[in-house]
């Protein structure tokens, strides 16, 4: 089917489908990491974020930072779906002369708050934005979407330590916990567990959810901030490559690009779902 009764599920479907076309055309990687966060992006841009595609620089907008910048294709897809820039642009993704780079890039791309790509940067910048908002008495919130792999970075844990000290309850960290990082499973490479307890011990209010259940994501976001005077952390349990059976939970699809029969099969599965 080409539409889903729940508009947020439908947006997630469109993000996945568009992303699949983008990485296929570009022959690029990271389709698995894009698919694992499709519902998170759909609920953020379809419902939660106070943003205006007509005014991408609106001073009171909620800020969204894709700290896991390698998921750029999905971010561009959702921004195009929401009308931040023409859908034709996304056909140029990754191509010579394009403005849409393989990692999230703000230059001349309306709606991309900051450029990322090197892991362990986004949460600090988000924290600075949240602190500035608090100091200025502004009402906007700041969301940062992290990968599980980037929680290996010491620089990710510096703002995790800092934000509760400054009572930044306008800051939301979301971890796309798809359990697979660059060279293996998170458990094998650098086990994060007990992950939620770590965030709690640092002073965050934490909620663990199924990151593919749009109703759960929606109702969780509706409770933000989870606690007054504490930053909020959403640990979203997800499946890498979600939506295409042969990609799901496979390290290979951090790298492999869907071509030929694999592309056709992936598209069919997404559209038949």
């Amino acid at each position: 089917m080409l539409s889903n009764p729940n508009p947020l599920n439908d947006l997630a479907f469109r993000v996945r489908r568009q992303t699949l076309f983008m990485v296929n055309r570009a022959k690029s990687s990271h389709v698995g990491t894009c698919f694992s966060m499709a519902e998170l992006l759909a609920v953020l841009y379809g419902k939660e974020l106070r943003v205006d595609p007509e005014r991408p620089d609106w001073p009171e907008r909620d800020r969204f930072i894709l700290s896991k910048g390698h998921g750029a294709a999905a971010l561009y897809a959702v921004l195009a779906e929401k009308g931040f820039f023409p859908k034709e642009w996304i056909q140029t993704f990754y191509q010579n002369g394009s403005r849409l780079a393989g990692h999230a890039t703000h230059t001349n791309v309306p709606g991309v708050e900051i450029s990322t790509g090197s892991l362990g940067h986004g949460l600090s910048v988000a924290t600075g934005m949240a602190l500035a908002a608090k100091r200025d008495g502004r009402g906007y919130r700041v969301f940062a979407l992290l990968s599980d792999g980037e929680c290996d970075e010491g620089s990710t844990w510096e703002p995790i330590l800092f934000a509760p000290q400054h009572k930044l309850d306008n800051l939301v960290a979301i971890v796309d916990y798809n359990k697979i990082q660059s060279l293996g499973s998170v458990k094998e490479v650098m086990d994060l567990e007990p992950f939620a307890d770590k965030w709690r011990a640092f002073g965050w209010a934490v909620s663990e959810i199924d990151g593919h259940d749009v109703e759960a994501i929606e109702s969780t976001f509706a409770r933000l901030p989870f606690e007054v005077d504490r930053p909020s952390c959403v640990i979203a349990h997800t499946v890498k490559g979600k939506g295409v059976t042969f990609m799901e939970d496979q390290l290979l699809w951090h790298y492999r690009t869907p071509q030929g029969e694999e592309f056709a099969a992936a598209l069919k599965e997404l559209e038949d779902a």
Partner: protein
Amino acid sequence: MRTAFIDSLFELAQQDRRIVLITGDLGFGVVTRFMNELPEQFVNAGVAEQNMTGLAAGMALSGKIVFTYSIANFPVIRPFEQIRNDVCYHNANVKVVAVGGGMAYGSLGASHHATEDMAVMRALPNMLVVAPNDPVEAGLATRAVAAHPGPCYLRLGRAGEAAVHGPDIEFELGKAIKVLEGEDLTLIVTGGLLQNALSAAEILSAQGVTARVLSMHTLKPLDTEAVLKAAAETQAIFTIEEHSVIGGLGGAVAETLMESETRPALFRRIGLNGQFSSVVGDQDYLRAHHGLDSAGMVATITSALRDSVRFTKKNDRHDLTVVG
């Protein structure tokens, strides 16, 4: 320089509430008044320079003018990628301030020697590099970088250096200050060695060699006009910096000269020769050890002049012309 910086910043911050000072848990007795009287414009990021720099970018992208502050390499090389990606790439209005440039923290050891900082900062797009030569320049440089809408690196010395300039100098980013006129050679100086260079010029003058002395407080953008003028009007150029001779002032001036038609008969970089200091000592001791005191500069300069087949003193040339 440290005092001139913090006093100027405090005054600026009182007038402009957008100014924020973030320290990496350093500045005991230095940032105290700022912290107490302007708490809404002060942040202690703790001993976490990467976060300090990311925070600064986030605050700057939210309308603040942010100064990050720590000592030596800590605010510069430790969070280098945050400076590159978060600050420079976004052209965020962040000023990275390092106190203790060069070997100001001499006896503390090489971990505390900022001797490659200018080279790496100079390579970054959008980044200005400013290394004042005395407290007067430091105060004016603080105001100038605050007024510049974009990333700047302000490399300061320590506390208590004597002023070289009078209070009423004209200071402009990217414009060298001619401190002494001379016709045989030019000393281009940055980052706190101006007094030593002037003393060296005095000794040389007694030996019959007169030196122009330029305070090159801004490394980037470099005042290429002043450099090329020096190359046209004097025969030899010596760059002087408490920094590796690779990539700093010496590198910047060499690049300018080699790409121009106007080249001096003699060019030498005086600085640190790309090695970690193998002896312990305070700043004056280490400067002398590395030939950065006035006697060391004179020794390097006179030996280079003597060995040069192309350099001739202006008076001598004049004599030759008359004779010849």
